[in-house]
């Protein structure tokens, strides 16, 4: 299992699509930095279609004023936990 870490804003579709196309069942996608803007209502439908579990990084989401609503988030220690639960991480930026 792989932890995918996406830090790019939805305005960077190429990065999102490359990340999306490498997700496998059982993988986790962690949205950090400008990646948390994927949780804006406009972009959620695409998140919902991903085959991976999706989590947001709490500090980055709060900083940017994005609502959590029905999504799951982790704090920095949860980020570390996700790294341990998965065998490898791939960063997309």
């Amino acid at each position, binding site marked *: 299992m792989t932890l995918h*870490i996406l*830090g790019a804003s939805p305005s960077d579709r190429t990065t999102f699509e490359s990340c999306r196309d490498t997700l496998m069942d059982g993988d986790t996608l962690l949205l*950090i*930095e*400008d990646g948390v803007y994927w949780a804006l209502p406009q972009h959620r439908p695409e998140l919902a279609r991903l085959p991976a579990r999706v989590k947001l*990084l709490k*500090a*980055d989401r709060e900083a940017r004023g994005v609502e959590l609503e029905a999504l799951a988030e982790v*704090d*920095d*220690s949860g*980020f*570390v*936990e996700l*790294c*341990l639960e998965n065998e*490898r*991480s791939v*960063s997309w*930026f």
Partner: protein
Amino acid sequence: MRFTLVVHSAPYQSASAGTALRFARAVLDAGHQIHRVFFYREGVHNASALASPPRDEQNLPQEWRALAKEHDLDLVVCIAAAVRRGILDKEEARRYEKKAGNLAKRFELSGLGQLIEASVVSDRVVTFGGGR
């Protein structure tokens, strides 16, 4: 568990320079080990001894130094990336006939082999990119 962090961005260039520091703290707080932090590409500027941010702004070079002191971290700056970009230790300053170096204390210049070695011996490697 043993972590290695790879940092590609300079402090004001990308949010990921700050994310890396927060992640490092979280790793240590959870009782895990950091085998090495490897600064590559523009990330070498995290090791500037001359960076002088306003008091009300985060000072990443200083915070890395403090964390390294507290936890005896191995902060390695890629020597080839650093020298090109004007980050020099005393020895490199001499070699290139510059008056003084500007590598902050607690950081060390070394080769990419240190990244490969760290990748091999660590349980997890996490890249903090941004600004491709």
